């Protein structure tokens, strides 16, 4: 997924080959991750697609099924991956993810700890930020989830950047051999305050911690615990509003002088019904945008803090 491997880097010359992970794009809200395998087929509502037809085609191309239906084949990115991964837990989405990576001040070479791993949605973006020389150590107390996450990182080609551990961070804290090595720590735990002490030991001085919690009571308690060893404790909520864009014909209000800036109005008299509105095609078409009808109203609170520089 990341261009750390030069052969995987996007290029005009790079084509889909056997064994690649591609994102099959039907619609903006309907995508699927598929491993290309010469003998395989993909079947969906548009028909049957032979993988063999895909091999050798450029990324971003449109491919057809036997029925003439089509899909696009895209190279995976962490954003696309977030939309297609299998949800083993509630996951973080692009607004929170982006903000976390920015506020944790992650740059190539950083070491970052995460708990829990969950479905690995954030982990993928953490890995992107610290590549090629940093490392993500991510922990989940659920063994199956950890195994599934490891398999995912294998599929997306991130396993050299991510180590998945099975560990109850709330109960046991982070492993001692990571003490003082972390540039940043991310917590997504039901009782984050139980892990804050250990997180403080893992962080380098001035390192940044982030705790993601859906409930304000969790934030309250975490912030109280953070106060002793951390500074710059700040809590945010970040949401996205998406817009619908459409081109529409707008009828013009017909007045004697014509509306300013409008095209010269046709000499037309519409005596009937006293209507002042044009019903023909003379209205100009405009592109309009409005917020989508429904949106996420809440994901979670993000609490950030920096480890104090203590002598």
């Amino acid at each position: 997924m990341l261009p750390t491997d030069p052969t995987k880097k996007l290029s005009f010359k790079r084509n889909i080959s056997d064994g690649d992970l591609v994102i099959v794009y039907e619609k903006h809200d309907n995508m699927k991750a598929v491993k290309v395998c010469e003998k395989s087929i993909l079947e969906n509502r548009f028909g049957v697609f032979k993988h063999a037809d895909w091999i050798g085609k450029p990324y971003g191309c449109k491919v057809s099924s036997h029925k003439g239906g089509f899909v696009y084949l895209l190279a995976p990115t962490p954003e696309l991956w977030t939309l297609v991964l299998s949800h083993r837990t509630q996951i973080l989405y692009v607004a929170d993810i982006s903000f976390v990576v920015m506020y944790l001040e992650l740059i190539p070479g950083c070491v970052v700890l995460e708990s829990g791993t969950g479905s690995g949605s954030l982990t993928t973006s953490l890995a992107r930020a610290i590549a090629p020389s940093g490392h993500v150590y991510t922990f989940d107390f659920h063994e199956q989830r950890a195994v599934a996450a490891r398999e995912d990182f294998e599929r997306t080609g991130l396993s050299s950047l991510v180590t998945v551990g099975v560990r109850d961070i709330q109960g046991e804290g982070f492993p001692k051999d990571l003490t003082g090595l972390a540039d940043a720590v991310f917590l997504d735990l039901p009782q984050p305050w139980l892990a804050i002490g250990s997180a403080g030991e893992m962080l380098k001085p001035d390192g940044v911690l982030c705790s993601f919690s859906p409930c304000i009571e969790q934030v309250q308690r975490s912030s109280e615990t953070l106060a002793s060893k951390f500074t710059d404790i700040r809590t945010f909520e970040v949401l996205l509003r998406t817009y619908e864009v459409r081109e529409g014909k707008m009828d013009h209000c017909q007045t004697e002088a014509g509306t300013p800036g409008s095209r010269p109005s046709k000499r037309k008299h519409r005596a009937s019904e006293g209507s002042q509105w044009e019903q023909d095609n003379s209205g100009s078409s405009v592109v309009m945008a409005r917020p989508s009808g429904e949106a996420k109203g809440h994901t979670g609170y993000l609490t950030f803090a920096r480890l104090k520089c203590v002598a």
Partner: protein
Amino acid sequence: MSTVEEQENYSNKNRRITWEGCSVLLDINDGDRLLFSRLTAGSIVKIGNKNYPLQPLIGCPFGSMFQVENGANGPCLSRVIPTAEASNAEDKKECDSKNESRDNRALIDNNTAQTLTGDDIEGMRREGASGNAIVEALIANSATFENKTSFSQEKYRLKKQKKYAPKVLLRRPFARSICDTYFKKYPARIGFLRVDTLSLLLSFANVTAHSDVLVVDMIGGILTGAVAERLGGTGYVCNTYRGDSPSSIEIVRIFNFGDEINKRIVRLPLADFCASSNGDSKDIELPQAASGVDNSTIESQAASGVENPTNQSDPVSMEETTMSSEDGKPTTETCALKVHKAAKPGEKASEDAIKSWKENGFSSLIIAAPEVDAWSIVKEVLPFLSFSAPFVIYHQYLQPLATCMHNLQVEKMAIGLQITEPWLREYQVLPSRTHPHMQMSACGGYVLSGTKIHNDNQPNKDFVLLVCYN
């Protein structure tokens, strides 16, 4: 886990201690005042009516706190090192404030509560009393302090502390803190780009090490810097522009980039792309005066103390040398650094790089050009983006992006098109007093994102023939 050692080496570059010539962010009184400065022997910061040399900040870890003192040679900053006990004491205070029965029904505002006069305070100062001692004296002489609720006692203390015992926090400039600071102080200079919006741009554009990122940065260099920070000295961030003078990317100077990162920040006039793609025309080098960097960013009061701002890059290369000698074997690259002048960000892209981009395309595209119509610029630069590569366009207004999105859809140039607007709210979290901040930024700008597709009907070459403006 065999990579731990390697990681340690790498994180040395991620410096946690200041050095002479390094750029810093000074946070005075808990965010009341923020300013960028460069630590040199002669630089100063003005707090109240006094000038404080910044010399004592050199060699201190980022995150250090300083307080003002009256030293033998005049006012000076001295580092405050919090002890574990002091931190615990603060904890206690928080807990005590949970049960509160006092209120302000008896408070009368008649300006007689404070018995200490201005002259008294001046006298204390002359005798060398510390700022904290003055604050304590003010509290002791306030008739109303005892009757205040513990919340307002705390408020009172903080207010007096800011005035008489200001604190200076030493911060490392990162894309995040630079964007935050500009958004607070000079939002127009960064096109009103809020930090959460900037973070979205970097995500949607899939910026990561080894990417070749094409940017149109007309917002002072905050975007170029943020991308370069994520590239960490790999790949390229190529800033393209119409005409012959690149937009200023002066903000890049604040980032503390070493040579290895600065070398990866290049510029290329748009005309050069089009010209060479139509034939073998040689690039004509523009006069260096067009270079997009100058030193005017650093706040003037701090800059006035800087002896020779154009020589700022020298200490950077000095630092590189000490860094590599830590692991015992200075590389040839470090030796070269001693001879050559430090790399400047925003040099013209090399022929090799241009050739490679023409053959392979860029892996991401980010446009932040408030003054140029989004559609007219995207249709010009999109041909240089690889197929399936993500692109993202920022604008502080919605309409240009809506039109652009519509056109991209009609022309079938991209899929996954989406306009998003981030919303960011901060909370005050205190025992029994948690609520959102009373004031917030109402608009952090709009983002149009999408993925370029391979379109059989319109092979990529056709786009290249589009007219280039000059």
